């Protein structure tokens, strides 16, 4: 691989404290280095903005759920075909793009790493088949633990060490990266058509509470020293008044502090940040949630920004999806997974004129703007729930420009506009803060040491945007900012140029990150004995057929940790 010198760009590298300095970035063998030789290829980035490749912490891009949605929604694809080119395979968009298109569209925006946030462990093999097929970007997936029978039984018995061993075994078996919790206990209740809305409700037949599940898994996360926080989608998704459950969830595991890292990440907080008692009465819970995040260091959030467009809702939260289907009356898919979790999918359209939709849009922006520290709030649309990931540039334009927000505020539902705090918030993100919430902070939260920065030794994943920070005023020229972030001038993946002028010029294979915590043999043995005793009773596949072997991953990237048990 030839050496590369990216010359004279305005570099934004928040992890190294570099804010728009004009400097050169040297690349050798797919890594950032201090300097390169005279023969290095030179890429002239004069007048352009250079950032680390984007890192998305939460985007439903692969697996059983995404594919059920693709199958259910041909009308979503037919209007957005992606023809093959000399360098790329064909495919379709729009809210649930096919796999090749997913990789290309992320790369075009300068994103190089994306995490799929909700993998049913039993169906993880499917997730990895799709992740293998997504070109260019690095990726990983978060297996679901919040309604798992073994988890709930260990929690009930108070056997935290065995639970830690089980989570370690499962991460290796599913080639998963982090612990994901969705509606703890509520999906088990959905087995009988029920749901759990509060942290101290009881899971039917298992006699544990969501609080106990969340606490135990946060403790396990600390014991296993996993790179990422526990990634949580709290109970009561989308219901009016659910902000209190979100606050309770954040507070409930505060004591499991991790040095220099967060304990939990509360995802798509817009969907669980609502005050009020009924739909017409929905109010923003963003100020309370933001206040809590501002006052505490153990938690981070992402808003799950809403976009006024057609979307596909998909989540492991089966009961929440059925509740929303009853409102949307469109198409509903449900897919429960034995002894583990569930899934729901609904097609929907967000409208500016709709009071609740307009509130959601505003709550998400309030969350992003009221959390003061950009290291605690990350850019997501909870793709494809709030909007497709291709809307990120639009969200960026709202964050950098109050004018852009005000323009849209004038068009949304009047009551929503009156009740939101958003009209009174004039904070505007700098490009440095944008670089933080889209790559530096997400990479840090995920514990990916070679991602999200441009220091020596980092992976040479680089995005170059056609923005001259000295000349452009993002507040006024937000449309130009949006355009630049939608079509990177260059995207470089592992030192290779994959995108030029917003078009894919080369396709490469990205890696799949997964975590292998090392647990002591004794505890592992005890846990395996428990597992063997029950596995055939709980599952319809044999234990020997359950784990995914490493050779199954086209480009496997294992991260090991040393567990404290």
């Amino acid at each position, binding site marked *: 691989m030839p050496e590369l010198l990216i010359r004279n760009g305005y570099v934004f590298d928040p992890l190294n404290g570099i804010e728009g300095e004009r400097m050169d970035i040297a690349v050798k063998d797919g890594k950032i280095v201090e300097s390169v030789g005279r023969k290095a290829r030179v890429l002239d980035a004069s007048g352009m903005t250079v950032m680390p490749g984007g890192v998305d912490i939460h985007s439903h891009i692969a697996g059983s759920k995404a594919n059920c949605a693709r199958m259910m929604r041909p009308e979503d694809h037919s209007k957005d075909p992606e023809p093959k080119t000399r360098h790329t395979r064909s495919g379709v968009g729009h809210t649930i793009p096919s796999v090749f298109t997913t990789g290309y569209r992320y790369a075009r925006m300068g994103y190089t790493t994306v995490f799929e946030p909700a993998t049913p462990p039993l169906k993880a093999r499917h997730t990895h088949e799709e992740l293998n097929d997504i070109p260019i970007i690095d990726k990983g997936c978060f297996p679901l633990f919040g309604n798992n029978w073994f988890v709930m039984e260990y929690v009930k018995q108070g056997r935290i060490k065995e639970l830690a061993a089980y989570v370690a075994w499962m991460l290796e078996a599913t080639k998963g990266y982090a612990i994901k919790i969705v509606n703890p206990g509520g999906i088990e209740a959905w087995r009988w058509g029920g749901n759990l809305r509060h942290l101290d409700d009881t899971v039917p037949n298992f006699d544990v509470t969501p609080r106990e599940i969340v606490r135990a898994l946060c403790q396990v996360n600390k014991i296993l020293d996993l790179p990422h926080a526990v990634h949580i989608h709290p109970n009561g998704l989308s219901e009016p008044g659910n902000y209190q459950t979100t606050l309770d969830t954040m507070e409930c595991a505060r004591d499991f502090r991790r040095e220099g890292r967060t304990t939990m990440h509360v995802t798509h907080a817009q969907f669980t940040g609502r005050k009020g008692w009924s739909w017409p009465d929905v109010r923003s819970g963003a100020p309370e949630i933001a206040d809590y995040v501002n006052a505490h260091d153990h938690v981070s959030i992402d808003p799950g920004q809403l976009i006024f467009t057609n979307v596909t809702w998909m989540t492991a939260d089966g009961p929440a999806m059925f509740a929303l289907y009853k409102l949307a009356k469109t198409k*509903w898919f449900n*897919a429960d997974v034995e002894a583990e979790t569930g899934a729901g999918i609904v097609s929907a359209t967000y409208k500016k004129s709709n009071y609740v939709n307009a509130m959601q849009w505003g709550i998400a922006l309030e969350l992003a703007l009221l959390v003061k520290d950009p290291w605690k709030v990350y850019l997501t649309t909870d793709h494809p729930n709030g909007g497709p990931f291709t809307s990120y540039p639009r969200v960026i334009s709202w964050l950098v420009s109050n004018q852009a927000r005000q323009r849209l505020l004038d068009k949304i539902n009047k009551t929503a506009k009156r009740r939101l705090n958003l009209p009174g918030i004039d904070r505007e993100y700098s490009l440095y803060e944008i670089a933080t919430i889209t790559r530096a902070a997400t990479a840090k939260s995920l514990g990916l040491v070679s991602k999200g920065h441009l220091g020596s030794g980092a992976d040479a994943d680089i995005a170059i945007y056609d923005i001259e920070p000295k000349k452009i005023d993002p507040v006024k020229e937000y449309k130009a900012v949006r355009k630049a972030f939608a079509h990177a001038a260059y995207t470089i993946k592992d030192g290779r140029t994959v995108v030029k002028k917003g078009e894919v010029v080369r396709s490469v294979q990205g890696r799949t990150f997964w975590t292998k915590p090392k647990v002591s043999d004794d505890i592992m043995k005890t846990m395996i004995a428990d597992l063997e005793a029950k596995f055939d009773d709980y599952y319809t596949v044999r234990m020997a057929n359950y784990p995914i072997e490493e050779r199954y991953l086209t480009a496997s990237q294992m991260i090991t940790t040393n567990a404290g048990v």
Partner: protein
Amino acid sequence: MDSVRNGCAISVSRFTTSDKSRLLKPLVRKGGKLRPTTFARAVDRAARILNNAKYPLLYGWSQTSCEAISKGIELAELVGGLIDNTTTSCHGPTILGVQDAGEATCTLGEIRHSADLVVYWGCNPVHSHPRHTNRYTIFSKGRFRKTRKDRKLIVVDVRKTDTAKLADRFIQVEPNGDYELLTALRTAINGEEIEQDTIAGVPVETVEEIANMMMECEFGALFFGLGLTMSAGKHRNTEAALALVRDLNYVTKFVIVPMRGWFNVTGANEVSTWQTGYPYAVDLTQGYPRFNPGDTSAIDAIARGEVDAALVVASDPVSHFPREAVKHLLKIPIIAVEPKRTPTSEAAEVVIPSAILGVEAAGTIYRIDGVALEARRVIAPPVGVRPDVEILDTMIKRVKKLGVKH
């Protein structure tokens, strides 16, 4: 292979007949007869046929691995063809139904653990899925349902099948009366009065009784087969069944699972969907995927006489397709990639023998409920016989080397 332990009748026959009527050498038609040739020559001939075709069809896929299906889609895109799988002739209407009404489903283990009411509609698992009742439904042992007594079974069919003999209630519906009966059940469940005295041969009292059984269960599961998808109404039938189950979720928990047949037909849908957006009948002639069953589905495209070459992998359309389609199929060059002699391989221009998945070749397959499993290689294939994935990969390379004509 002499004997197989722990297999169902279908699995046992897959193994014990694996050496019967095998194709062992690549064949190419010369002077009207299929004659042995080398692998390289057979692949070259196949690549030339595909390259020269204006509207090639790549068909089959349900008896092979996801890895091979993936190669098939790549090849179809490369030569600008139409790729379709056997869904087109079995559960295609199910997918169309789902695209209209959605689907409330789950993995089979959930049904084993929880279902206290099982409905088999237009399917006969005692013969088609011999382990189904033992492993997943009435005779299985789950967490919340332990024995036969914990579950009720309703069978709806046009005749008293062997599955019907196990039922607590057997409902004999008039042939092609499924849509009517499903709609009547929905009417009853939604609390409306039915005016007729009989619905598709079923007394209205029985309809109401079945509706009540469905509403009063704690966890119901409806399985349906080709009796629903391939009788009059087709995707309207499946849509009605899917909507019935959806409506039932307003009053209790209910799921629906299509009884897919072919070995890995679910996998064929999955791979096709994640790579092209569409589960079957995908037209790649324009350089991007198009899906319009009836237009882009294999049988229709052949019957219209538009397809001018066919690559058939792990399937036998000459036996299975309607006569009109077969008539045209026999006029065009067929490339058959197949372990055994079939009417399709006999009619082919090029025959490439392949290894049997799950016996002689490994690969990913999907269960009917979307759980991906790895099929393993148990014995070596006959000498010189390759797995589908390798054959297709070689074909892709050859097509690229020759350079696509259009």
